[in-house]
């Protein structure tokens, strides 16, 4: 299933946040969205997932979600959004219960996604017992459990320290290599974008408009940390972002 964002605009009251966004999210690709803070990245993701209604334009699904898909558009949040009163197992079963998966059928799915995220030993742990990286793994497992057509990730690694971030990036790449998935991945971290993105959408400062879409052709599995081609891409993205970030920073300081 593809997604098509069709001349999407959004404003909060008088303040325009997004202007005329056109975007094609192709099945099997990771689309990274970068831009200075406050430019409307999270808003764009909420509009794409149907958590908010756009002021103008629309988001379209092309084709049907894959078989067995329980929740086509599934979020992974920056703050993990785990229920503190449920164990790891309970947090995953939460999203299955309403679809009629209980008992043994739920356990089969839960065991599978926990194994894929290397969490099998933490089934009975409560979120407060887990480190940040573990919590985000649980959130990823929970998202995998509903077999989404498109993952919507809002800065999923931004709350983590840089070593944990590297480990989780490797995990995400591993998951994608084993079974390709589609994702819109919002980040402000250029390194994450060039490591994970097939396509990188650069937004301008608020109101967010698409400044440029950068394709990265190097296959995900062969992207090395020191790869000169990737370094060039990252430098190019930083040149695009630099003045926007600087200007956005000034705006906030004035407000």
């Amino acid at each position, binding site marked *: 299933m593809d997604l098509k964002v069709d001349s999407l605009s959004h404003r909060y009251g008088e303040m325009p946040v997004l202007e005329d966004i056109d975007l094609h999210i192709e099945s099997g690709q990771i689309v990274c969205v970068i831009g200075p803070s406050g430019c409307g990245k999270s808003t764009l993701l909420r509009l794409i*997932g149907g958590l908010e209604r756009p002021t103008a334009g629309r988001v379209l699904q092309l084709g049907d979600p894959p078989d067995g898909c329980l929740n086509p558009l599934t979020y992974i949040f920056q703050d993990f959004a785990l229920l503190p009163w449920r164990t790891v197992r309970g947090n995953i079963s939460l999203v299955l*219960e*309403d679809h009629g998966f209980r008992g043994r059928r739920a356990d089969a799915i839960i065991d599978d996604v926990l194994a894929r995220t290397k969490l099998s030993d933490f089934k009975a742990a409560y979120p407060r017992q887990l480190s940040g990286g573990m919590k985000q793994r649980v959130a990823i497992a929970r998202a995998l459990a509903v077999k989404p057509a498109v993952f919507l990730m809002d800065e999923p690694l931004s709350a983590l320290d840089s070593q944990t971030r590297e480990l989780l990036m490797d995990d995400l790449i591993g998951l994608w290599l084993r079974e390709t998935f589609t994702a819109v991945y919002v980040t402000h971290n250029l390194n994450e974008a060039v490591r994970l993105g097939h396509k990188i959408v650069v937004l301008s400062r608020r109101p967010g408009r698409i400044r440029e879409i950068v394709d990265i052709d190097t296959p995900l599995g062969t992207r090395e940390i020191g790869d000169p081609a990737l370094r060039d891409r990252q430098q190019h993205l930083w040149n695009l972002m630099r003045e926007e970030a600087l200007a956005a920073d000034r705006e906030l300081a004035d407000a």
Partner: protein
Amino acid sequence: MPDTSATQPEETSGADSRTSNPPGPPGEVLRPVPFRGGGFAPRRIGVVGWILFTVILLLWELGSRTGVISQLTLPAPSEALTAFADLVRSGLLWRHLEASLSRLLVGWFFGALLGITVGFAIGLFSLARAGMVPLVAAIFPIPKIALLPLFIVWFGIGEESKVAVILFGTFFPTVISTYGGVDNVDRSLIRMGQSFGLRRFSIIWKIILPGALPAILSGMRISASIAIILLVAAEMIGAEFGIGAYVMQAGNLMATDQLVAGVAVLSVFGLTVSWLIGRAERYLLRWRS
């Protein structure tokens, strides 16, 4: 290493007295950084309460025996104990307890149930909030016992009017703590529930209710105390049986030993309820610790 010289003026804490420390530039005084952390973390010390309680009782008994506390002012704890033993032997204790407990449980249960329901309605629906919040604010501060005569007119002199006072009195604090708890549930969790396509009922039952539970339970603590106060007040005004009635009769006869025995039973009531809620909290909120 405890270093007493840290508190001394610096002239006396010569550098030669701490030759084991890493040497600084000559002539500079080396001092450990003063400790400024700690505190603000009360621990559970179980025995202290019991010891204090026993000491007070012993002093009281001693005061009564030596005549420092006159018999007319306050009976000795041992006399109150005798009065209590009489109450047990006569079999009247159980009748009083039964009457009081049934009023308390029925009034408190339905008051809390209705309060939680209305509190949820206020927390979830704009219309309920707009209508109920000012109403609750207007009625909450009224001492409910002042309404007992009105309830007697409406429901008669029997059990109903007493239960109604307790129900009414526990309803309002429960409403306030419940909707406060619902308001404080992390919105990002609700957003998460919606993003996974959970049904509205599931979001309320699995996300909002557990999220509001800490506030609801601490509201229960308050409403339980209110319920006991109202119970006694209502029984004092008009009841044949009940701990409040027993205390009232004792007061009328100037039987201070019985009065103290009755008051002690009420105190045990309060302690039991508080203990039960503590247990419920520890079980229901075990994910927090």
